[in-house]
Each structure stands twice: as structure tokens, then as C-alpha cells.
């Protein structure tokens, strides 16, 4: 029993047409409060379709989504309420900026939740501080900002609703290295400040190894695996068979093993790698 539970979810596109296609089939998993979940899978594996069910943007063809033990579709008229509790940051969210000023754009979500006056201003200011949107930007047009800044404002707009679960669909796509690092930091900071549950779709195995508590691996609309970083990235062959890979640092260890070095290969971050080599060095000294 977690904050978010998906039970036997199936989503079929194309209805009764000849192009009928299961985008997601019979998926079940549960997410605990405060966890960081990574979702990986190649393009077309159903990742985006799956997360759009988590805040009621898509209705399951079959199965259900429970938020705090309640079926989010129990009362279809209330479905909008779930959107402020489970926030979804789309791919390239900056394409959805529309207001005249940065401040107004970030205010849009909380305003729709009924916040106004000082309370609204306080909420928006807090989020701006958290994501690093400086006061001198408040009155600027979001369209005058750089790509990375626009992304930041768009993410702040979802965070301003203070969702308990926040989902990011490839949040760093198209950004430069500095931009990618900044976005990852914003996500971590929000998680620390609010204790929220975070779900991230990503193609970067390196980022997932650093950030995620658990990884959900999608393949052809089904869950291939849902487990710890260790469980998922130890399964090298399995991942390769479904068109995915392990972090680059893990590949180096696999290659070392191939070269006849007696070394463990379950190393997923540079930090782990350094520790492992230090241990080896110490071991050799003592031998």
C-alpha cells in the first residue's frame, strides 16, 4: 500500500478500429511516499502513456490508479483535483508557457487551486527561490528567456501547486550539460524541501543510477522489471535484449572482467567505482 498504486492497468489506443494497439498492458506497481522512481524503456515502450494515467490525463481502458487508496476515477467529475496532487511535467514543458510574465505563468496552477492574494504570492515566491528564478525575472516575458531558463519556469509552474507526487517526462531532454545538471538539482531540492514522491522518465542510465531509489523498466507496454538500482542494472543481458543498457561506468567494469581482471561488476556510479578501486588497492597492499 503506497501513496500511488497502479492495478492491472491496460490502455488501448484505436478503440474498435483496425489499428487497435495495446500501449500499456496489465501493469501493476506501487510507489511509497517520498521515493524517487526512475522509469526507463526505449521509445514506444509505453512510458509516457503510463505516466499520463497517474494524474488522470488518460483514463485506463482497464484496471485502476489509486492515490492514497482512492480510485482517482471514482468520481470522474473530480478528476481535475488529482492534477494538483500528482503534478506532471511534460517533455519540453517550455512549449506550454503562455502568460505575459514569468510570475503570472508560475501563478497559474496555484491560482486554479483557489489560492489568491498574499498566500498565492508567498507560494509562488517560495517556489521561485527553490528553483532559482530570481526576483528580477518575475516581470519578464517568459518568451524572452533562454531555453534553460524557460524550462526552469515551466517546472516551477507545476511545483507551485505543491504536488505530493511529481512526475517528469524526460526533464533534461535537449539541454546542455549545465542545464541538465541544474534541472536535476531542482528536482532533488524539491524532493528535500517537500518530501514529495518523484517519478522520472529518463534515457540517462547514469542519472538514474545516481538518483533513483527504484527503477521501473518498461518494454512493449509491459513492466519488464521493477526493483532497486542494483536489481535492474545487474541484469546486463536482460537490459540489452530489450534495447537498453547499463551506465557507462558499469560497462567499464564489465570490460575489465572480460580482460581477466578479478573484479565485481555491480558498480553503477563513479563514486562506487572509486571506492571499489580503493578497496582493491588496500587489499593488494595488505597481501
Amino acid at each position, binding site marked *: 500500500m503506497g501513496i500511488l498504486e497502479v492495478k492491472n492497468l491496460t490502455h488501448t489506443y484505436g478503440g474498435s478500429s483496425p489499428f487497435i494497439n495495446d500501449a500499456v498492458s496489465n501493469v501493476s506497481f506501487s510507489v511509497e511516499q517520498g521515493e524517487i522512481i526512475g522509469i526507463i524503456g*526505449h*521509445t*514506444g515502450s509505453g512510458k509516457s502513456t503510463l505516466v499520463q494515467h497517474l494524474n488522470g490525463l488518460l483514463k485506463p481502458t482497464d484496471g485502476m490508479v489509486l492515490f492514497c487508496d482512492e480510485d482517482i476515477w471514482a468520481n470522474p467529475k473530480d478528476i481535475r483535483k488529482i492534477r494538483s496532487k500528482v503534478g506532471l511535467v511534460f517533455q519540453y514543458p517550455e512549449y506550454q508557457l503562455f502568460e505575459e510574465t514569468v510570475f503570472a505563468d508560475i501563478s497559474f496552477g496555484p491560482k486554479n487551486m483557489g489560492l489568491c492574494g498574499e498566500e498565492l504570492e508567498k507560494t509562488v515566491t517560495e517556489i521561485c527561490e527553490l528553483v532559482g528564478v530570481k526576483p528580477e525575472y518575475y516581470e519578464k516575458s517568459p518568451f524572452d528567456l*533562454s*531555453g*534553460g531558463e524557460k524550462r526552469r519556469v515551466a517546472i516551477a509552474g507545476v511545483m507551485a501547486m505543491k504536488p505530493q507526487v511529481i512526475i517528469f517526462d524526460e526533464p533534461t*531532454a*535537449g*539541454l*546542455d*550539460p*549545465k*542545464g541538465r*545538471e541544474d534541472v536535476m538539482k531542482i528536482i532533488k531540492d524539491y524532493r528535500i524541501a517537500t518530501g514529495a514522491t518523484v517519478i522520472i522518465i529518463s*534515457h540517462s542510465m*547514469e542519472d538514474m543510477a545516481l538518483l533513483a531509489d527504484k527503477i521501473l523498466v518498461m518494454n512493449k507496454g509491459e513492466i519488464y522489471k521493477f526493483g532497486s538500482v542494483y536489481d535492474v542494472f545487474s541484469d546486463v543481458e536482460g537490459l540489452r535484449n530489450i*534495447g537498453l*543498457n547499463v*551506465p*557507462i*561506468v558499469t*560497462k*567499464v567494469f564489465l*570490460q*575489465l572482467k*572480460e*580482460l581477466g*581482471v578479478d573484479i565485481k561488476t555491480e558498480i553503477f556510479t*563513479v563514486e562506487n*567505482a*572509486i571506492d571499489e*578501486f*580503493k578497496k*582493491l*588497492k588496500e587489499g*593488494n*597492499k595488505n597481501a
Partner: protein
Amino acid sequence: MDKIIEVKNVTYEYTEEETTHIAVKDLSLCIERGSFTVILGHNGSGKSTLAKLLNGLNKATFGDVFVDGINTKNEETEIEVKRKVGMVFQNPDNQLVASIVEEDVAFGPENLGLAPREIRVRVDEALKAVGMYEFKDSTPHRLSGGQKQRVAIAGIIAMEPECLVLDEPTAMLDPKGRAEIINTLLKLNREKGITVVLITHYMEEAEKADRVIVMNNGSIIDDGTPSEIFKNVEKLKTVGLDVPQTTELLYELSKNGFSVNTNKISVEDTALEIKRALEEF
């Protein structure tokens, strides 16, 4: 050396809200015919402006750009320049114009006024070169991002340019799509001798290049082979770039007292370097 492109003391200025910005500052650069060059730099470093200067889409405020000896400022030879240097952009969806793949690739050669038989040959060859021939009758919107981008590249090479300039062609693609594009570019370079200038944010894509150029604030701050460039991890980090995780690993090892060279990029070379270091102690 045989130069296909020569950039001589080029400055590029633009005006926005009455303020003049300098995107490229007194920059000089030669691109050798048949080479594979990668340009790295963070957003706003001037690399896209430079890309557009290379085929005359941008005209230098000061200085000159020569393509095969032709000044890109010269209006009469503008078409010739664009024929020699073809450009591919970030978003494949913005670059495809027709509803059938082969018609899309034919768009360029048709505009060159070629005979239908010649167009047919060029379209088929271009699609084969990017590995998309079997999709020639497909609809572009049903293709993956990497496939669409390969069709966009085919559309350019069907005009038989001598040089391809690509501005972050992999930024919107998944790892599989990215690999498809890089392999396609390497093949075009090695097998057809097409000069490639690739602008990217992904450091791994620089691994197989002949030359890597690093830009910051409108200037070139580093220029060398991939292993020369990635040796200098600190410098890259100060200009908002990072290094491949392989180089990062070697760099961290050397910081922790292991005697390893940090100028390795591929997984194989990195593993060999670590193996060598491990055998020493």
C-alpha cells in the same frame, strides 16, 4: 592542407531591444576537406551562430567566411555556397516537407532542376546511405525521431554537398536514435568523403571525431583531437561542459592517487588503462 571552409576574423553581432550582442567574436577557423569536426559549447556559447555562418545563413558583421574559396557574403554565389554546405537542424519534425519519405528526399534535387532520372538515382542513393531505403514509401510522421532525422540528412545529401553542418541533430533523440545518427555521419564521412561539422551537447559523440573545437563566449577556447580535449577535465567543467563518464572515472581515479592517463574515451581504452594501473600496485 585542403580547406573546404575558411573563417577569417569573423565577428557576428545582433541587436535585441536596442542592445547589441556579440555572438561570435573575432573568430578564425579552417575546416579541412574530408574531416570530421565536432563543436562543443554550452547554450549561448555561439556555436549555432557559427554553424549558420558556415553556409551563409548568417553573414559576418566583420571578417569573411570562404567556402571552397567563395566568399559567403557574395550574393551572386549564394546558391553555390548552400549547395556545397548543407545544414541539418535539431528538430526533425520541422525539416520534413512531404508526406512520403522519397518525395521528401527528392525536394532538394528537384529544386536544383535536375532531370527526373538523375533525381531518382540520387534519392535512392541518399536513402541507402542513411539506411532508410526500405522506408522510401513510408509516411515520415510514422517514423521514429532517429529515422526522421536520417531522412532529413538524406534530403541534404541528395543535393550532393561537400560538407554537412549539423546543429544538435541528436538533441531530441533517444540513445538509439542518437547512435543511428552518429553512425550514419561516420559512414558518410568515411565512405563518401563528406566533410562533417557536428555541433552537439553530448560529449560521447565527440569520441570518434578527428577534431574537437570547444567554444565559450563566442570564441574558440580549445581545439584538438578528442583525447587532447578530454584530458582537460577541469577546463571543460569551468565552461559548463562535462566529459564522458569514462573520462570522469579516470579523472576521479587520478585525483585519488591512481596513476592513470585521463585522455581515454571509449569503454575499451578506459578498461585497458585501468587494468594497466591495477597491475602496477
